[in-house]
Structures are given as C-alpha cells and as structure tokens.
C-alpha cells in the first residue's frame, strides 16, 4: 500500500451546538494526500474545511475515524507532538517576541542547538525575503510581511506537512495574487506537502495540484483543477467552481453515454451521462457559458431557440443572456477572437444557441 503524507479515513466531527443540539461539522470525510502535493480544501464558510485542517493539526480530535501522517495513526496525539506546522489565518505571531524569536520558537522547543537555530532562522528569513528583520516586533511589520513571517516560523521546522488556514485571506487583492504565486513557487522549492484551506475558488485553481470541494461537512469531489471544472460530479461543485448554466428536466431517450433531456416548454437537448440514468428520472444538465455558441459551428448537435434578453460586451468576450421557450435563461459567452469582432445578436432578436453533446453534462444530484 502506498504511503500518503496525510490520510483521513472516514473522519467525523460532531460538536455540541449552542442549544444543546449536535452539530456535525465533518461527515465521513476520506482523503489521501500524496507527499509533496499542494492540496486545497475548498468550500464556503461552515463547510468543514477548517475543522478538517484542525483535526490534522491536532487542535480538534475526530469524533470517529482516524487521521494518518505518513501511515502513522495520530489518535489523541496532541498538536505539539505532531510533525506538522500551521500558518494561521490571523498569523498568530507572538506579539511580545521579536521576529527572530518568533521564528526560532519551534526549534528552541525541539531543543535544537543554539548555533543551528540561528543558522536556520537566518535561512528561513532569507527564504521569505525578510532578512535583517530579526529584531523587529510583529506589530512593526505590514500584513504581507507578517504573513511571510508566519510562513517562515512554520517552515523553519521542516514539517512533514504544512497546514495553511486561509493564509491570504487578510491581504488585499494585489498582494494576494503575488503571494499565491510566491507560495506555489516556495512549495516547489521546499517540496513539503502543503494543505491549504480557502473559500476562494480562483485561489484554489491557481495554486493547487488537487482540490477537495467541501460542502455541509462532506468532501463532494476530489480532483485536479481541470477535472473539477470540466467534470463536476454534482450541482454544487458545478455551481461553486466558475460560472455555469443549469437546465432542469426529465430523461427522455437513452443512448450509450448520452441521454435526451426534456426541459420545460418543449426545450430538448442531448447531454453526456457520466452516471447511469433511467428514462423518466429528474435530472439537471450543466453547460458552461463558454462552451455554447450563437455563431454556427459544424460539430454542434444541440440547437436551442430563444430570444436575446441582454448583451454585455467586455472586450475579450461578449456575454449574451438568452431566454428559451420554457422561460429558462441561459448565459452564452462568445470569445471575440477575430480581428473585427462584432455583435452576433442584439437585444430582442431571436437566436439559436448551439453546443456539443459533450459540453452538456447530466447531473443526478
């Protein structure tokens, strides 16, 4: 059996709620995270992603199930005996210590000898490009600098796994974009497994090798960015990652790998079926706006008639809102790739929307 850096095996976490009821924060989550992977836990607030991370760190213990680090079951091991380090959302730098003391803290606790501590603290600060800041106090640093110190303080210990709890959440947009790339580069350099919690899908797509999308305490889908975007396995994932259209309908005819779905108002289309469906089953079809076209192309099989309700020109793309016969509004994104792009339709005009069968996916849940 291959050994994973981190494995969560059927992990549950239940908390007593404020009214004495039981709140289930994490439901039967199983994850396997390989060595050296940059892994994101992505989901809206309250989805259980931070609780999952805290169970790996040891701040919370699973109600059921087990957390493994390199194959060793963690059981009730307290945080200070786990070979992982955390970068906290609020950084949690010790305000009474200098930057040097903050970064040295973990090594001192591990009784690393003094000269070695000094050398590694210097290296760590160099790595985050804050050499010479040893004697400053955390309050004297900007948010971005504090963030990098928090990173240095964790990485200086050479943990088996680095846990990051929304580490870029408090930074402004420009700095966040910079840090995303910097973090990714850093992770490649040190080769340590990073597990990263975020609610920002773009951040997750930019940085991670693989992503687990979480909702309601459940890990809905685990895969790389491409997989999650192109092959969402449920309505929530399709909706949470990027923009998409949903058409509700009933399965009409079946052919291998595809099905005809009949929606309201006589709207009918063929869509790819990743999961088996039966005629008469209620399903949802998801189609990404950029995979639909108003201009005709030869490969398209589906043809839906509608009327343009709004047109938004944003330079690289033009977005069209089209209302179908059944009253459903879908959004179509046309790329303006030709030298002289012009509008393909105006508000109020009747149009045909075309797309390939593979562009439409039948979702059963």
């Amino acid at each position, binding site marked *: 059996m291959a050994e994973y850096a981190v494995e969560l095996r059927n992990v549950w976490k239940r908390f007593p709620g404020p009214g004495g009821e039981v709140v289930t924060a994490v439901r039967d989550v199983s994850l396997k995270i390989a060595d050296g992977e940059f892994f994101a836990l992505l989901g809206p607030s309250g989805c259980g992603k931070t609780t999952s991370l805290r169970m790996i*760190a*040891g*701040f919370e213990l699973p109600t059921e199930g087990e957390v493994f680090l390199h194959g060793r079951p963690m059981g009730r091991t*307290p*945080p*200070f*005996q786990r070979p*992982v*380090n*955390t970068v*906290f959302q*609020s950084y*949690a*730098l*010790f*305000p*009474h210590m200098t930057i040097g003391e903050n970064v040295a*803290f*973990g090594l001192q*606790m*591990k009784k690393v000898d003094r000269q070695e501590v000094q050398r590694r603290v210097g290296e760590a600060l160099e790595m985050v490009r804050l050499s010479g800041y040893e004697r400053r*106090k*955390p*309050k*004297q640093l900007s948010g971005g600098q504090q963030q990098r110190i928090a990173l240095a*303080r*964790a990485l200086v*210990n050479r943990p088996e796994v680095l846990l990051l709890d929304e580490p870029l959440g408090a930074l402004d947009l420009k700095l966040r974009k910079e840090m995303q790339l910097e973090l990714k580069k850093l992770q490649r350099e040190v080769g340590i497994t990073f597990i990263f919690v975020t609610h920002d899908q773009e951040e997750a797509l930019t940085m991670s090798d693989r992503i687990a999308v979480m909702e309601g305490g459940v890990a809905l889908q685990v895969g790389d960015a491409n997989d999650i975007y192109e092959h969402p396995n449920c309505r929530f994932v399709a909706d949470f990652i990027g923009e998409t259209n949903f058409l509700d309908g009933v399965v009409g005819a079946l052919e291998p790998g595809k099905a005809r779905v009949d929606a309201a108002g006589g709207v009918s289309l063929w869509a790819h079926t990743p999961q088996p469906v039966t005629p008469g089953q209620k399903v949802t079809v998801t189609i990404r706006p950029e995979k639909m076209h108003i201009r005709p192309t030869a490969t398209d099989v589906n043809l839906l008639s509608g009327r343009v309700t709004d047109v938004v020109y944003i330079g690289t793309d033009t977005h069209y809102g089209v209302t179908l016969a059944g009253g459903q509004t879908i959004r179509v994104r046309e790329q303006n790739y030709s030298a002289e792009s012009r509008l393909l339709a105006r508000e109020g005009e009747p149009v045909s929307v075309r797309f390939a069968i593979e562009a439409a996916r039948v979702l059963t849940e």
Partner: protein
Amino acid sequence: MIQSFRENRRLQGFLLILPTLLVMLVMLVLPLTLTVITSFGQRDADGNVIYTFTLENYWRLLGFTETGWDDLYLGILMRSLWLAVQTTVIVILMAYPLAYFIARAPEKRRNFLLFLVLIPLWTNFIIRIYAWVMILRGQGVLNSALGGVAGLLSIPFTPFDFYPSQGAVLVGMVYEFLPFMILPIYTSLEKIEPNLYEAAADLYANAFHTFWRVTVPLSMPGVVAGTILTFVPVIGTFVVSDILGGRQVILVGNLVQRQFLDARNPPFGSAASIILLLMTLALTLYYTRRFGLGEEIAAG
C-alpha cells in the same frame, strides 16, 4: 475674534485641558505643596505649626537626634517596605492561579466567578478586618477549629497567639488587596488571543513551555498594574496594622496618623509623608522602568 480663536490651536488646547488642570491643582498640587511647606516647619507647645525653614524633621526621621543615632523611624520605614514587598509577592502568587482559572473558565461562568471575587468589597473595610480579629484571636475561630482537631486526635493543645501580631497584619493585607491583583491579571489573561496558545502548541511547546513563554509574558501588564495597585496602598495604610497589629505593629502610615492626631506634630507627620511619597515614587519608577508600564506589550 471668533475666527482667530478657531485658528488658535494652542488656546483651544489650553481651554480643553483647563478643567483637568484645575482639578489637579486643587486636589493634588495644593495639598502636596502645603504638606511640603509644613514638613519644613516646627510646632509650638500647643501643637500649632510655625512656618519656618528647618530640616530638623527630616534629620530626626533619618535617625539623627540630640541624644545620638536612633534607628526607630528608619526601622518603621524598613518594616513598612518589607511588609509591602511580602504582601505583594504573596498576593501575586495567590491571585495568578485564581485569575488564570477564571480566564480559562467557560465564558458564561467567568462573570459569576468575578462577581464572587468582588462580593467581599461590598462589606465595609473595617468590618472585614475585624472579622479577621474574630478568626485569629486566642479564642477565635481558627484556634477553636485547631483545638477541635487536636481534641479528636487527643493531642494537647494550647491556643496560638495569632493575634495581635505582624503575621496577622500580613494576613489582613493579603486578604484586603487580593481582588486588586486578581482583576488586572484576569483582564490581561483574558485579552490573550486563544490562537497564540494554539500557535505555541503547533510549534512543539507543551503546556509548561506555553505557560512560561507565552502566557506569563503576555500577562505581565496585569501583574505590573496589580503590583502598583497593591504595593502603593499597602506601604501607606494604617488601619490594618492598627487593628490586627493591636497597635504594636507600627508602619509609616501609623506614624503619620499618630503625628497628626495623637502627637499633634503636623510638621513631623508631613515630613514622614514626604519621605513615604519619595520612597514609593522611587520604587514605582524603578519597577515600571524595569518591567514597563504594562501597556507596552499590548500597544506593540
């Protein structure tokens, strides 16, 4: 006129600070000046103050008398100082665990526990000290209890003379000032971000190391504030030593009080006050220079 007032920032500042200045002048500067002036004076046979300029009172306090060296007053000063140090140290040692316990209690219970700390303060100060007389005296509660235990174990028992004594004064002082140490320490403990404890645990610190490297340094502002709130009043108080010391334990506070009321020698009493003031000031300055004013860490 109005326009120029709007532009005159200095005048505006002065007017805004004026009420405070007046209060300080009437409540602090005037009485203190009067005390300083009196301390250089003499008394006549009827106990009236003669305003002259003499250092006699100070010389006498420092031990120089007509009959030679006498360390009576220096002894009183040193005894007061020592008692204040003892009281403060014991109060810190007792208050810290209590404050820690309250700060770590569930949020809903904290207010109730703080309320318990404050209940004794609702009773009059003198009555609370007399209660200690009832506990500590020869036939008091403590001796009866000990006697009862000794009786059960068939050990011969002679009641202890807990009261009046310097030890009784110390007990009274500790009791009296405990809440004034618990509250500031609690406040600074409660302000510590919980994720700092998690960060320490994450960086391999066990409970012991977390306490000494994170909790204690971050709660020092509370300890400093509590120390000033305890040490300064203890060094000058006279009621506790009067009651629990049975008028035999004489502190600077008692000296000052008696010079004014019994001996009718305000100049000497004033000089003792000034010495006490200077001593407290010097110690407080040293202490706050050494450990900070208690806000440095919080303010970054």
